[in-house]
Structure formats: structure tokens, C-alpha cells
């Protein structure tokens, strides 16, 4: 599966309160959550983002709370994947559990610009910046987590295999 989209750039340490502020957590409805996605980092994001777009960020993306509302809001707003230099660990595992593709690459995180068109080969993690022609390899994903993605998330994995 190939992912292709336009890039929105964010900085380091984007926390889960920036991704989906806690004041909106009185619901878990994805359609409601997406209206406020990234609002405290960029108030215009919910109105600018369109299906297939890609978030590129610095280090420690998704730090803070364990709220799964964060990857849910990102997915619901149509974002096809997140590329960062590193991810906070709970956000990292939530993304795999929920089937939101994420990729770690220091170089891609440093060099890809806002508005670039980027393509990612999900199976290999090969990132291509179509706008500049540059390619980046993302950090390899452990076997078990590849299985989670292939099965469509943790719950699907359990239902398919009869356990974790």
C-alpha cells in the first residue's frame, strides 16, 4: 500500500493536549474529535487538512497523555500517516494498536517542508519527497508490530489469532 499526500509540518514535543485538547474529551466520537484536531498547535488545521495529507513533525510527537482520542482525531481528519524524528511511547503503541501508520526518520523529519508532496511505501517504510526527489529510509518496525498492522490493529489481531 502506498500513501501519498501533502505535508503539514509541526515542531518538537507536540503533546496530546495540542493534538486533541482535554476540554473536548467529553466525547469519543471521531467526527466531533476531528473538528479540534491539532487546534492548540495550529487553530486553522481542522479547516485546512484534507484526506490523504501527511503530518511531519520533530522529536517526541504525541507526548503526554495516553488518550487514544489523539490518533483517532488524526485518523478521522483524514491524515494518512505521521512521520517524525521520534514518537512518545504511548502514542507509538496506540498508533499500531489502532492502525494509524507512523514512521520514524531523523532526516525526513529535518528536511521535508510544509506543502511538499510525499509518498510512503508502507511495507518498506521508504519515504519519497516527490517535491524534492529525495528519499529517506524509516527505522525498521519489529516483526510483532508488523503483524499488528497486517492484521488491522490489536483487537483484530486477537480475534484472528485467539490471543495476543
Amino acid at each position, binding site marked *: 500500500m502506498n500513501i501519498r499526500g501533502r505535508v503539514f509540518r509541526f515542531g518538537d514535543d507536540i503533546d496530546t493536549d495540542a493534538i486533541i485538547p482535554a476540554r473536548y474529551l*467529553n466525547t469519543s466520537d471521531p467526527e466531533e474529535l476531528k473538528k479540534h484536531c491539532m487546534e492548540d498547535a495550529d487553530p486553522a488545521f481542522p479547516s485546512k487538512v484534507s484526506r490523504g495529507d501527511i503530518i511531519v513533525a520533530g522529536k517526541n510527537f504525541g507526548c503526554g497523555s495516553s488518550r*487514544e482520542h489523539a490518533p483517532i482525531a488524526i485518523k478521522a481528519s483524514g491524515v494518512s500517516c505521521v512521520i517524525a524524528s521520534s514518537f512518545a511511547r504511548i502514542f507509538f503503541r496506540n498508533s499500531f494498536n489502532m492502525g494509524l501508520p507512523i514512521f520514524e526518520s531523523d532526516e525526513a523529519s529535518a528536511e521535508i517542508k510544509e506543502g511538499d508532496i510525499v509518498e510512503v511505501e508502507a511495507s518498506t517504510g521508504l519515504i519519497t519527497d516527490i517535491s524534492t526527489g529525495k528519499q529517506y529510509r524509516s527505522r525498521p518496525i519489529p516483526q510483532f508490530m508488523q503483524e499488528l498492522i497486517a492484521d488491522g490493529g490489536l483487537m483484530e489481531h486477537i480475534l484472528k489469532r485467539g490471543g495476543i
Partner: protein
Amino acid sequence: MGMTIAEKILAAHTDAHEVMPGDIVKVNVDVALANDITAPLAIKAFKAGGQAKLADPDRVVFVLDHFTPNKDIASANQCKMVRDFAHNHELKNFFDGGDVGVEHALLPEKGLVLPGDLVIGADSHTCTYGALGAFATGVGSTDLAAAMMTAQAWMKVPESMKFVFKGELLPWVGGKDLILYLIGDIGVDGGLYRVLEIEGPAVTSLDLSNRLTMSNMAIEAGAKAGIIKADDKTMAYVKPRAKRPYTVFESDADARYAAFREYDCANIEPQVAFPHLPANTRPISEVGEVRIDQVVIGSCTNGRIEDLRVSAGILKGQKIDKRVRCVVLPATPEVFLQAEEEGLIRIFLQAGAIIGPPSCGPCLGGHLGILAKGEKALATTNRNFVGRMGDPGSEVYLSGPAVAAASAVTGRISSPSEVTE
């Protein structure tokens, strides 16, 4: 090869005798926790899985502590969903109404988390229980749903980092100051994917409450867990509360660590974290003039009786600055009752503080003290991200309960020595 306490606890919860950092293991879970924000998603996922019964209802704990007493219709609906599920599945460990305390203050107090346990919680501050010598880590709601179905979770075995606090604590310094200092040193991702193993004579000298404060904020350095090995004080705390057997683990002398740091407490003043990251710390002597509109004393970080005693000790006979709202939220009903019996509630009220119910309240911008644009709060809570306590144009500063109480009196961030003899 020697193993760390984290590796030993993980190994004890798998079929393997040994685990290595980087291994992905399937672990048996002793406690699976969720709150009124994360349980609804976990319940949805559990129901979608189609399994009729929980793998082990006694291991599941739900605490309705975040947006309760229900702040609006939407949160009332979320709580009702959790309530109905808890009653249908006859959950013994379901905390609602007058039984609610802030989850990470409540579970240790109730003896629901014990040394050597493996705990997952759909709340990032689940790492608090590391102070009891448990391996406890925050996960998402889907992980929790999986544990509800299977009583298991998947874990990548983390590397450990060792932190040793030496020397004696300076006046007004507590666990909050030590952990803020550590986070200020290594940064908000300085412990990413790793375990902070915290020890040393200064840590041994702390009571359990101050140790829980330290482990609570391990996540603020990005860590998976923040573990303090169990000692005599831990045993004295745990024994009267435990209703099931438990095991005390210690790291081997030849255990491997990814990093080692030593701090001399002679250099650690009371700390304040400036907006908008917990790592933006300054010693109180370098804070400068910061006027505040609100003080919050409470939360899973600093809402226990020991914290209230420190704050009340400073507020006794004092008046809170007219321009400051000081909100005190005892973290559990037991803490509230104890504070009442010790006369602390009276001290807070006479000083002009507002006493609220045990709730996470304003910590995450829920209710009970939301900030307007341009307002500043000093809080004993754990996060000061943009918009954390209200309007995205507001600011949150973090400190321990002594600096918080002193600042409520002066109206600006102040050292306790300014208002005490």
C-alpha cells in the same frame, strides 16, 4: 547476566525466565485500570470484540475521576456508559460517587496495587505505582480492551536508566522538586522508551507519598516506568492494605543500565517548571517576578494528605492574596476525611481557599478552575502544556505544595521562606 527490577517483574509475568531489552513479550497483567475518559473507548473496543465476559473482572479497575462530578451532559453520558458496564459485569473495583478519588492516589491507598505487580492503565500517570516497586505503565484504551479480554498485554522490554539522589534535602524540598530537577536535566524525552530506576539516600528518606510524586512524573521525561525499589517504608505502607500475596524484586548488582546519573541534593532548591513543558525548570531563587491568578493544590501528583499538611502548614494564619483563587482538591475521600480531622480544611477555608471534591478537575482543563486567556496558574499538578488548564492563551507553572501555598499568599511565585519564619 544480571537483570534490573523492571526486567525481573516483566520476566515474572511471562513464561520466560529471562527477558532482554528490545524483546517483545506477552505479559500477564495484575491490574488493568481506566477512567471516565479512557474506559468508554475500551468498553467500545471490548464490545466490538464480541466476548461476553471479562477474562478476570477482579483485575479490572474503573475510576470515574476526570470529569466528575459530571461537568456537562456529554461527560455524564460517558460516565453512564461506564457505570452500566461496571454494574453488568459486577466489577468489584468500580469507584463512583462518594467512593471516587483521583485514580493514582486511590489505588495505592486501597491496596489494589502491590510491589512486583504488572499494571497497565489507560492513563499516562499509571507510572505512579513504580514507587511501590511495581512495573506500571500507561497504555491506550485498545490495550486496555485487550487486557479486559485476555488479562494480557504486549510489551517491548525497555532499557533502564539509573538515577541516584545523594545528600540531604534543602528546606521545603520534596519529591516534586527532585523529579522536576531530574526532568529539567534529561528533558521531556530524556527517558523515552526507558525505565527510570530512582534510588539513593535522599529517596530512601522520603515517605511513600513523596516517592509516589516522583514516579508519577516519570512519563514527563517520556519514560515507560519510574521504579523505586520497595523498602521497609514501602512494606509498612503496603502490609495493612494488601489483600493478596505480592513479591519484592530488586535489581542485580550486575544489571545493565543505558545511563547512570547522580545528583547531590545540596544543589536542589525548590523547583518551578515554566510554561509550556515540565522540563522548563528553574530553581525558586531564579524565578523572578511572576504574578499569578490561580493556585491549584491537588492531583495524582500532589493531592495526598502529606501534601495538604505542607500547604496548610504555610497557610495557617495567613490570607490568600485577593487576586488569587486558590483551589484545593483532596485527592481521595480518605485524604479529605483525614484533612478534616487534622483541622487542615479549616485552615484552608480560613485562609480563603476553595475546597473542591476529589477529582482531576482543572489539571487537564476539565472543570473546577479553568483559566481565561492571559491568566497564569501555579499548580502542584504534572503538566503545563499549552491550553492544559483552559484557554490556549493561559499559562501553567508547576511546583510542589510548599511553593504553591506560599505563592497563594503573596500573589506571585514565591519561596516558602518569604511567608514563614
